[in-house]
């Protein structure tokens, strides 16, 4: 590991160092090696791009790389990777049936061997990617994946709507990863986008995978029992924020779903009234025409309402739902950060008590301290990034919803105005008193 940039501030891939008992640190090393490899190809990256300073792994530089105000302005212009998820297909084998999605990548990044890639991935693969990213970066915030199963409504896994909803969510997931300064430059991400199925399978088999996750969970439980002594205030603030945010976003999700339900029920009633006016028109002479028009207007309004409900389901509800899932991620991230600190605190205590091996322990302690600092800073930066993204996502979701509601009312307005117009011209034409 001869990268000159790496200094002693970070537990890098120096294999002579005693491996810390915390597995997550070990994983960190591995990924960093890979990342180092990628960037040692001597590429010149554009100024201000998210990949520029990523391999200067000192905490300070890490913080710097998150300050991408410049990037925000010309995001679309400086975007050098485009990922889409589409074309779901059912695959039937002797053992199982599952759905694969086409993942297409277009990029100008030089670490990619080509500029276009097309692979097929199944949900499990996305799950694997997420797990890898979380293991490698325990205090960074990974955008949530759509859930494995949908409990409500008993949706079948192979139901068209379910697959489409999932596809959209997977698309968003990958795009969030691609937009993330650290995640998008990981090896795992690149492999996910480019490797053929066989290649991916063998890559998956390397690395810690399932066992390490188990280990982490056990450790997490143990750590939570141990508790953190001096949590910095900003993380306590984050915790409080996350708790409050969880409640609010949960409420918004429920309210929005309730609105959809009520609108659907209103629609059912509305659908019945048109035919009644048509029926009535059959008993009438003078009134037949306005009654028929009335029925037509109601039917048009029904169509618009149906459209409005569909759009709520397709656009607002999924976004809110994703942020509900986000809260779990946020809680997990905060927990993991706490664990890292708890580990360090425990080690510090142990050092105070032990007489022998002090020097070795001190070295280890320093590493853990660095690791903790690194994790804290990573979280702080990613927190800011996450808040920006959340704000953008939710703002545009609500703005779009408001706009669609305006459109809905405008269309209904036009329907009724044309009805009025028809009646008024009719009255002028006939003259009121003389009946035809």
């Amino acid at each position, binding site marked *: 590991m001869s990268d000159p940039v790496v200094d002693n501030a970070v537990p890098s891939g120096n294999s002579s160092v005693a491996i810390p008992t915390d597995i997550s640190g070990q994983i960190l090393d591995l990924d960093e090696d890979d990342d180092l490899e990628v960037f040692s190809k001597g590429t010149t990256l554009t100024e201000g791009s998210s990949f520029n300073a990523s391999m200067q792994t000192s905490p300070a530089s890490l913080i710097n790389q998150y300050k991408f105000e410049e990037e925000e302005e010309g995001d679309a212009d400086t975007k050098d990777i485009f990922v889409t998820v589409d074309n779901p297909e059912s695959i039937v084998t002797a053992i199982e049936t599952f759905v694969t999605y086409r993942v297409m990548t277009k990029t100008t990044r030089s670490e990619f061997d080509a500029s276009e890639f097309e692979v097929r991935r199944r949900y499990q693969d996305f799950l694997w990617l997420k797990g890898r990213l979380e293991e490698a970066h325990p205090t960074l915030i990974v955008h949530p994946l759509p859930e494995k199963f949908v409990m409500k409504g008993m949706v079948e896994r192979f139901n068209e709507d379910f697959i489409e909803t999932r596809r959209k969510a997977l698309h968003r997931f990958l795009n969030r990863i691609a937009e993330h300064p650290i995640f998008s430059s990981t090896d795992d991400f690149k492999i996910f986008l480019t490797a053929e199925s066989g290649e991916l399978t063998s890559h998956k088999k390397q690395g810690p995978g399932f066992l390490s996750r188990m280990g982490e969970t056990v450790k997490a439980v143990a750590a939570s029992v141990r508790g953190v002594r001096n949590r910095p205030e900003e993380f306590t603030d984050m915790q409080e*924020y996350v708790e*409050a*945010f969880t409640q*609010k976003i949960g*409420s*918004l999700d429920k*309210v929005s779903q*309730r*609105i959809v339900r*009520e*609108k659907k*029920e*209103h629609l*059912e*009633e*509305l659908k*019945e*009234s048109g035919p*009644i*006016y048509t*029926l*009535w028109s059959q*008993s*009438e002479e*003078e*009134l037949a025409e*306005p*009654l028929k028009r*009335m029925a037509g*207007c109601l039917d048009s*309004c029904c169509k618009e309402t149906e459209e409005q409900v569909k759009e709520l389901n397709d656009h607002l509800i999924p976004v809110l739902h994703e942020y509900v899932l986000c809260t779990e991620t946020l809680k997990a991230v905060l927990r993991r950060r706490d664990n890292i600190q708890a580990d360090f605190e425990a080690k510090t205590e142990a050092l105070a008590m032990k007489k022998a091996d002090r020097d070795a322990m001190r070295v280890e302690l320093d590493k853990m301290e660095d690791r903790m600092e690194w994790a804290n800073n990573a979280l702080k930066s990613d927190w800011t990034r996450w808040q920006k993204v959340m*704000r953008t996502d*939710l*703002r545009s979701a*609500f*703005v779009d919803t*408001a*706009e669609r*509601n*305006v459109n*809905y*009312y*405008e269309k*209904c*307005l036009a329907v*009724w*105005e044309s*009805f*009025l117009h028809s*009646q008024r011209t009719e009255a002028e034409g006939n003259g*009121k*008193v003389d*009946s035809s």
Partner: protein
Amino acid sequence: MADSGSEEIAVIGNTDLTPSESENNLKNTMVEKGTSLLKKMEISVAEAEKRTGKNAVNMQETYTVYLIETRPVDAASEGTNPVPDSLWRRYSEFELLRNYLLVAYPFVVVPPLPEKRAEFVWHKLTADNMDPDFVERRRVGLENFLLRVASHPVLSTDKIFYSFLTEENGWKETVFETGFQAKADSRLKALNATFRVKNPDKRFAEMKHYGDELQSVISQLLRVRARAADRLYGVYKVHGNYGRVFSEWSAIEKEMGDGLQSAGHHMDAYAASVDDILEEEEHYADQLKEYLFYADAVRAVCRKHELTQFELEMAAQDLISKKQQREELATGTVRTFSLKGMTSKLFGQETPEQREAKLKMLETQIEEGEELVKERKTECDEYVKSAWVDIERFKEQKDHDLREALISYAIMQISMCKKGIQVWNNAKECFSKM
């Protein structure tokens, strides 16, 4: 018109109007055009009040009374605006008036009263007769009823109606003195006629059928409308929850706070706006309800025709059989089986004197029968004529009113859409500041 100015109170079966006169009045049936009564006097039901008192069985009861105000037209236009004459009436008195008019003018499609109990309600309204919203809508309905009667060419001339508007005390007794209740056709009689009538006027049969259809279709509409109103209420009110959550959420956000907070206010406004919307829709429902009840009144006129026609047919039938009897008696042939014939066979023929007496009696009866048939035929023909005139008047009124109701519904929907556009545009602006 028919108001001869005499002190006669009973005007039962008054068909003083000649066909040509009533034809002229066809053109003047719109409330705007006005009858001579409306030209003299402004009528309104201004207020409603709760009263308690002892009822017929000496028990305490609470009821509502309505203030009827009448005002001479000239005074108002002169700008002096004197205190109007007024009196209090309760719903049961309105019912009494209407029942009287039904009996006195069976050929008229008598305007209906607002419903006795709230029906086709959606959840927000209670079916409670004491509920202030219900009382208010009833007040409007009663005023509408009075104006309908006052603008009817025939009904507006009725003295009982006039005294209903002007004489608080003793009006009830006056109505009872007309003895109208005795003249009312029993339900059984009417039902019997409906089943057994042979040749009713086709137009009336069609009109009755129309009445059935109108009632059915409007009932369905009102039911669906009530359910839809319920649902719409739910949709709007749930948005109020957005308001609450946005407000709470804004407390934990820094940059998003202001946008969220103000968006929340707009959501609250949106949720609140449904109350006005549904109140206006209630007005539309009331307009439909009036014609739901009018359908009943139309059917009543048709049923009366069936009754008069049936009575004519009965009288004619009776005459025919009497004539047959005479023939049999005169010629000595027994055509039809009759008890008399049988008894005479069993107990011997009658004496010539007996036969003579019988014949004479039959002759008288036949004469009377022919008179009766003539009378009933005239009654029937006149009824058909005047009833059809009023039905035509009603049809024109109905076409006009219902078209206006549809138009006002469209206007209501337009207003609702405009409000929605405004609220969501405002919300959109707030959201974009999030």
